[in-house]
């Protein structure tokens, strides 16, 4: 078994074993694909944590998440856009939480798209906070589903990067940048 000897995160590893250990590190991980994305946001850690912890806020910057209903302090119900106008739904359970530092979640049994992940918040001094999302998931309907998903730009790696950028925009500027110049155009962009 080859284990990397460098300091790079396992999400960027070329080695299968190293990626597997990254997936295993996501608590109660579901799925065998791994994405890691970091963004630095020029706001205090506690403020970012608080906004994210209220999962009903997530649709404001996650483009493909239509709605999140809070069921209890640790459970929520997600409605997520899928290719070809479909939606997929699942219940998510918070599996680990450290105030101001991290939230980990996993989908309940029988989720349409099994997924799990963690979001971590680390101080970055004068630059604000480094926010790292690590997501382990099973792509819908295997490889073909992933290709279709990519065509519809719902491919999770791209989506995660864009969602984190929107989170940063919202937290830093109070709004999400758009190049549309009419409301109609913006609505079409979001559709």
């Amino acid at each position, binding site marked *: 078994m080859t284990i990397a000897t460098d300091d790079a995160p396992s999400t960027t590893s070329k080695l299968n074993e190293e990626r597997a250990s990254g997936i295993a590190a996501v608590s109660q991980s579901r799925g065998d694909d791994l994405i890691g994305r970091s963004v630095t946001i020029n706001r205090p850690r506690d403020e970012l944590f608080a906004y994210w912890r209220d999962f009903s806020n997530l649709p404001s910057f996650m483009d493909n998440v239509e709605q999140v209903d809070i069921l209890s302090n640790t459970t929520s119900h997600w409605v997520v856009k899928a290719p070809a106008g479909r939606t997929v739904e699942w219940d998510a359970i918070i599996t680990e939480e450290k105030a101001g530092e991290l939230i980990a979640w996993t989908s309940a049994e029988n989720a349409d798209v099994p997924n799990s992940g963690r979001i971590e918040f680390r101080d970055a001094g004068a630059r604000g906070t480094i926010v790292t999302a690590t997501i382990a998931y099973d792509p819908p309907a295997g490889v073909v589903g992933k290709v279709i998903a990519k065509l519809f730009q719902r491919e999770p790696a791209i989506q995660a990067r*864009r969602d984190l950028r929107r989170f940063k925009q919202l937290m830093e500027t109070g709004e999400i940048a*758009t190049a549309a110049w009419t409301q109609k155009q913006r609505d079409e962009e979001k559709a």
Partner: protein
Amino acid sequence: MRALTWHDKHDVRVDTVDDPEILNPRDAIIKITSTAICGSDLHLYDGYIPTMQAGDILGHEFMGEVVETGPKSTLQKGQRVVVPFTIACGSCYHCGKHQYSACDNGNPADNQDIGQEMYGQPMSGLFGYSHLTGGYAGGQAEYVRVPFSDVGPIVVPDGLEDDEVLFLSDILPTGWQAAENADIEPGDTVAVWGCGPVGLFAVQSAFLMGAHRVIAIDHFPHRLELAKKFGAETINFEQSKTYEALMEMTGGIGPDAVIDAVGLEAHGFFVDNVIDQIKASLFLGTDRTHSIRQAIHACRKGGRVSMPAVYGGFVDKFPLGAFMEKGLTLKTGQTSVQHYMPALLHAIVEGKIDTTFLISHRMSLEDAPKGYKMFHDNQNEVTKIVLKPGFAVAAQ
């Protein structure tokens, strides 16, 4: 509203499109009173910049009157403002360092993928300059939506004409930043390639920063005349050998600092340039780069290279050896317009910088396609075209 739209290479039209609306809290809507065609608009016109889409509204040098404001805008209806071409949020790390053109948030999240793939990190949004820079509608129109209006636009004091302040939007700060990037020391000789608007403002700026001599290089006699007016010595590269002339004019040393204000549409039938043109037409390489090569070749040992010129992609035959062996320093980048606007507005009010000399033509927005063609075909006499939506259409 009426707006100048891009359709294809050498095909721009004035179309009727939807009026812009306030979409975000910090937005403002500006009614355009003056908007210029920039030399870099010709890069779009000539099809050199990728990610353009039919119907895109062009224009990134504009000013006008505030007609509508979002709840978080600090502007007031009726104010006259000049709008910077870089769209910057004012609240990210880079804006905090006044690196506005590197703003993290000015470019919509989905569009940032293009810059991330091409350049490693996405840059700020720009008005009217392809989807690589956000896909924002530009200001060659009757109205424009201005995001982050509490950070960008500068209010024009009463008593100043549009023509005096319009160039605060891009080319004056760009010429100024070019001179600043040359790290000019008293007694320096600075050579400037290209006497377009940016080059001419770089000439003025270099003198204001203490350059002893400025040598301006071009082949358009009228543009060289303008450089001469500001005290520059000139080299017409069609009549003289540029490198040899620079070496003789500097006593064999070479210029202390060189400024490439030409960029990817360098004219001239030099062997490497012709090869570049062939490659560009075959999509083998996107950028034509004679001026930067020549500037590096001529620059004195240990000198500074400033590159305001626009490049978009990859180049080959870049003289990396000369660059390393001579120990040169290169500074470049899109202009952080917001950083320079207040001081340059002050310099205009004080009469230290002349801007109106540049304008050769004023015409109606409706005549914009004609303006593009004129500017493209006759760069000797056409130094700057300012479009005025209120102007009468010229008789045919």
